[in-house]
């Protein structure tokens, strides 16, 4: 039995369609993966700001290693963790372009810890989209620096034992302490309201860059249905119930010029 669609109303106006800066093709991400939402939000923001054709994106090593395939603007591939350094090299020689990195929790908070902190400390005029899903996706579900205590992963099979495997790292809080940072916030992608807030944050982050205010990062609590062993809907609920308490949403550093901004 094929589903019968309801009657199509007459006189329709377009409310929303896929952003221009997204290439018109399917992605390799798992069904329900919030990478897709994050990519879409970045594309929407760059479209709305008219910046897409001045943008250079830096892809990480992780599930988003092919991120550059999905955007219509220029892109490069960084070594694992080194995207902020690569972005620094690019932005310093091309200061009038929009340069952003897109990094997961292994890339940014593990191997790339030095590079992210120093890029923020230097106040590099780059924007970082940090996808925090408490696990290593691409390599099959190992523990990440952001994995929660007692969380089961393939390298913490009995659950993360804080006595031997330490505690999760809250990156937004850490980077907010650096004077070079202009905009450091944490948002979540677990429902429509939060996704809308995340988009506003991404907008302000790029504003921080183009207004030459400093380093910007939006940490986005995200899902990994496949490696968490859940359905996409269950994974969204897991973020709401487990990650949001551990990683409080909010604005950790917003320079005055951005506070006044209405976008």
């Amino acid at each position, binding site marked *: 039995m094929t589903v019968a669609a309801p009657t199509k109303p007459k006189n329709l106006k377009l409310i929303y369609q896929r952003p221009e800066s997204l290439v018109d093709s399917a992605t390799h991400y798992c069904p329900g993966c919030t990478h897709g939402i994050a990519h879409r939000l970045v594309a929407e923001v760059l479209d709305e700001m008219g910046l897409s054709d001045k943008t*250079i994106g830096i892809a990480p090593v992780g599930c988003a290693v092919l991120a550059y395939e999905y955007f219509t603007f*220029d*892109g*490069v*591939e960084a070594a694992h963790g080194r995207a902020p*350094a*690569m972005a620094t*090299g690019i932005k310093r*020689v*091309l200061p009038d372009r929009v340069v952003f990195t897109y990094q997961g929790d292994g890339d940014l908070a593990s191997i790339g810890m030095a590079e992210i902190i120093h890029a923020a400390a230097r106040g590099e005029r780059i924007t970082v989209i940090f996808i925090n899903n408490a696990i290593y996706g691409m390599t099959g579900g190992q523990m990440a620096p952001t994995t929660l205590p007692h969380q089961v992963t393939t390298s913490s099979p009995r659950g993360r034992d804080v006595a031997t495997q330490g505690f999760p790292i809250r990156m937004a809080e850490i980077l907010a302490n650096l004077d070079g940072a202009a905009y450091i916030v944490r948002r979540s992608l677990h429902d429509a309201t939060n996704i809308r807030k995340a988009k506003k944050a991404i907008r302000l982050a790029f504003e921080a860059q183009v207004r030459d205010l400093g380093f910007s990062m939006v940490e986005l609590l995200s899902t990994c249905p496949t490696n968490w062993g859940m359905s996409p809907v269950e994974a969204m609920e897991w973020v709401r119930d487990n990650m949001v308490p551990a990683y409080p949403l909010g604005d950790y550093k917003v320079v005055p010029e951005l506070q006044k901004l209405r976008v």
Partner: protein
Amino acid sequence: MTRELMKGNVAMAEAAIRAGVEAYFGYPITPQSELLEWMSKRMPEEGRVFLQAESEVAAINMVYGAACTGARVMTSTSGPGISLMAEGISYIAGTEVPAVIVDVVRGGPGLGNIAPSQGDYRQVAHGAGHGDFFPIVLAPSSVQEAVDLIGEAFDLAEKYRTVVFVVADGSIGQMMEPVSLPEPRPIRRERPEWAVTGTPGRSRRILTSLYLKPEDEEIVNLRLVQRWREVEANEIRYREYYLDDADYVVMGFGTAGRVALSAVRAARAQGMRVGLFRPVSLRPFPAQAVRELAQKAKAFLVVEMNGGQMLDDVQAAAQGQVPIRFYGRMGGMVPFPDEVLDEIQALVDEPPTLDEDPRARWLAHMQRRMS
């Protein structure tokens, strides 16, 4: 042509500026920190980019980023830094973007010391990073030659879209010699057609070293091999001294080659028919020239400031056609001309045989000296 007395590190930095380098990213490490310091002063004066990175790992990745935009970019470091940079170097080569890396070599392995050595030969010439790629490696033996090679390095890097190392022994970086600096070249504003620049009005460009499908990766790998064969055909560099009628050939690069030259001159003055072959491109290695010398010479003496790294390449090129003996100082020790002269004398008086282990005599000699 005015000449200035300049420290090698400073001269190399200034030479790079005159060659139109647009961005320098580096990290302090002895014995090259003066290069970084000079850049920190001069690059902002010229309106160019200077940044001291948080580590060599970060530095090479900044270089990688800038290289992707088509900018002329370099870094400098010493052995431990090259080790840290290895992944980044492989990425730069795999992405086929140009970069110049200066290695001012110190004693090693490990932390070693800050005295000069040639212990990085094998690493930069044969092991700079993972995968099939081919850096060009140039080795100066004087501050002037270092200045000249820096300019060539950028041109070669861009011509062949590869990594070019200028490997200077710590002594070259530290010593002061009279130098003629080249005329400044203007910054080349036009970017190559592959450069990622975020420019409106053209289709998207992507630069990556990721080729998930093996069929695609193999195409890249083969392209790098083909390009390397062009480099081998066109970019071999070496210097020859007193070789026309030489029965014995001393071989050395960089400072070892320079010290050996003094010894060769002294030997000539004593009537020995000996010459010097000094590779300037360590990679591509002047194998053909070595092979030809192997047909004519009675013996080779390879002199290095390591345990015999270029020796392996000489042996491979000589294909067993000539007896070879080795003399080396390690750990930051610099050989003196009289040591090398003694070895030349021994070469003449007690020539090696084809089946002699090139290192045997040297090790026995060093053992005696150490005890």
